[in-house]
């Protein structure tokens, strides 16, 4: 008996040692992995961590706005919380989510053995993660735009720079894979729509992120030394705001069109129509590059003679309406395909379709915001646009993870749960953003939680927005639990 116990103890110790060795080994495998699926999942997990914190901040700011006369947080930290929300949603959520899906899925779609320059891709993740942590910590410690802690403002700028370089490295990896690692005989016009959208999105990042990085370098040098040219901590938002706002976010989310086209095409006929529409739509959406690269905002001025109006309308349409046409085309062919052949209600379709619809609404809102007589600049309407695009893209990412769940995780997700999350996520997005579309016209100011007065149910609008953020938190947490749940043993793996 004693011998058995000793043996048992030895076995126990042995199994513990093996367990810890396995744990260390598993961790080492993840840290040094060159497997594109793992690198993609690292980006996805990082994006979801950011997302949870961003939603928390959005929820807190919503509560603050319910009563316009008082503030729970210190007044000087409010602007930094808004900055956290925007920086986090753009660089911490949207960019890594779609880079992650692209890294994991594109090599499988084009028959590549692996992602090109997998180590560069992994290095990009580490840079992004390090920069993200710096951004988070610096804003919490009174850094970021308008921050009072000089060192933390420096850390914020360094963090944003690292995030941009990390995303750039990953984008180069994705673009190189699609261009140079396709299977023999697969020409670029025959690649799947998602790979096409990943390529265009990656090229968009390669052409735009360096421009934002240039601004960050200038702002960082200026802030660290003289604070003479860029306005110090007060000028940061103006100079690097392009990296965390529209239309740069449109570049981050180009792959959403590829996701929707893939999901629709995999559930019915009319594949050629969807494929053509997807290619054309993604191409047209990529024209948003011109606005980002030239750093220009083209407002539509409804003043002067007819000639003046036309002169104002043409660049407005080219820079603001043309990209929307791309999303419209993909949505239209998707709905046409669904009308022709109503599919079974399946898991990825619901969040993907509703998400792209939200993105479309956000882009329409951005076009309205660019109409000068509407006088929406600086109002919460801008926040509504951001949330529509951000949360809409998150829904599409949920759809993508559900669609490629077998490839990403080795098992599919329960359909009912994903459909439920899709519907609740849609409601959350509408609640968190539509009220801001309405009260933007009542001139409720952005980046402020107090001192806004207008006729109408002020508290109601802000309660609805807060509820929307709370619902989104439930969706994201619930979805995270579902995808992180341990895989049950299958019959084959039972000894």
């Amino acid at each position, binding site marked *: 008996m004693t011998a058995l116990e000793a043996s048992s103890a030895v076995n126990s110790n042995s199994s513990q040692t093996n367990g810890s060795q396995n744990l260390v080994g598993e961790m080492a495998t993840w840290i040094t992995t060159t497997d594109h699926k793992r690198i993609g999942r690292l980006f996805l997990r990082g994006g979801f961590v950011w997302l949870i914190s961003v939603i928390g901040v959005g929820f807190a700011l919503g509560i603050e706005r319910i009563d316009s006369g008082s503030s729970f947080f210190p007044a000087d930290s409010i602007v930094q919380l808004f900055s956290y929300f925007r920086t986090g949603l753009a660089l911490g959520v949207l960019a890594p989510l779609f880079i992650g899906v692209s890294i994991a899925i594109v090599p499988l779609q084009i*028959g*590549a*053995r692996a992602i*090109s*320059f997998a180590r*560069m891709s992994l290095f990009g993740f580490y840079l992004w993660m390090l920069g993200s942590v710096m951004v988070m910590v610096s804003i919490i410690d009174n850094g970021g735009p308008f921050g009072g802690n000089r060192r933390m403002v420096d850390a914020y700028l360094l963090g944003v720079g690292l995030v941009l370089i990390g995303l*750039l490295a990953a984008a*180069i*990896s994705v*673009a*190189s894979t699609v*261009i*140079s*690692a*396709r*299977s*023999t*005989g697969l020409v670029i016009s025959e690649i799947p729509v998602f790979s096409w959208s990943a390529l265009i999105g990656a*090229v968009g990042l*390669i*052409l*735009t*992120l*360096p*421009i*934002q*990085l*240039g*601004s960050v*370098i*200038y702002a960082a*040098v*200026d802030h660290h*030394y*003289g604070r*003479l*040219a860029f306005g110090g901590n007060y000028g940061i938002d103006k100079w690097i705001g392009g990296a965390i706002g529209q239309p740069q976010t449109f570049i981050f989310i180009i792959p959403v069109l590829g996701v929707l086209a893939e999901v629709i095409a995999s559930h019915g006929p009319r594949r050629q129509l969807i494929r053509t529409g997807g290619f054309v739509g993604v191409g047209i959406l990529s024209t948003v590059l011109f606005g980002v*690269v030239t*750093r220009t905002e083209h407002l539509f001025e409804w003043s002067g003679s007819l000639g003046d109006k036309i002169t104002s309308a043409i660049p407005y349409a080219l820079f603001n309406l043309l990209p929307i046409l791309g999303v419209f085309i993909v949505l239209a062919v998707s709905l046409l395909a669904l009308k022709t052949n109503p599919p079974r209600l399946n898991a990825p379709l619901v969040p993907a379709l509703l998400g792209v619809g939200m993105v479309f609404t956000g882009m329409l809102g951005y076009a309205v915001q660019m109409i000068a007589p509407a006088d929406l600049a600086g109002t919460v309407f801008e926040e509504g646009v951001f949330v529509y695009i951000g949360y809409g893209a998150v829904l599409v990412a949920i759809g993508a993870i559900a669609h490629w769940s077998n490839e990403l995780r080795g098992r599919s997700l329960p359909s009912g749960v994903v459909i439920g999350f899709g519907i609740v996520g849609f409601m959350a997005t509408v609640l968190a953003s539509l009220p801001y579309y309405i009260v933007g016209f009542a001139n409720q100011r952005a980046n402020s939680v107090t001192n806004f007065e207008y006729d109408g149910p002020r508290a109601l609008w802000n309660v609805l927005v807060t509820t929307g953020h709370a619902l989104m938190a439930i969706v994201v947490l619930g979805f995270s639990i579902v995808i992180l749940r341990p895989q049950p043993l299958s019959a084959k793996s039972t000894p």
Partner: protein
Amino acid sequence: MTATVISPPRSAAKHQVFVATATAGSAVFMLMLGMLSIWLRFRDAAPLRESSNGTKMIRDWLPVNIAIPEVATNTTLITLVMTCVIAQWAVYATRRSDSSHTYLALAIVAVLGIAAINAQIAVYVQMEMGIADGAYQTLFYAITGTMTALLASGVVFSLVALFRALAGRLSDRQVMSAHALYWYVLTAAFSAMWFIVYVQK
């Protein structure tokens, strides 16, 4: 019984290094274009003043007491043009499997790159201005410092290519082509900066 093995689709991974270098080169070029556009924006926003000889009105951007050492800046440009020529020589030598000329060419490229960095440091020394002395000085150090860092990345690329060649991977022609392409991009980016920052001032 014959076992049937279904082989996975064969990937035709070609020119990966060259393509990645081209995309990275695009990013480098866009970085410099973006920084130059901000430079131009600041310069255009500077107030007008009379030129030193009183013949015309100019932008009060370059401080009066600062002189750009044009010999050093022009030498840097010429050095980089030579770097491109020598990098192309490395490609040529690799195609002819001429290892000694490949080693020599890559070593010269690395040395020329270091010389360009040295010339940039000489510019800093001769200008004797502090980074926090004014808006011009801050922007000048930011943009030229970024360019210097990019030149350093080119030197690293040259050294890596040289070590690969020394290790016997001479048949890997696309690395040589990618190396030459990267130096072309660096030279183009420097040329744009040279014209706007050093010539137009």
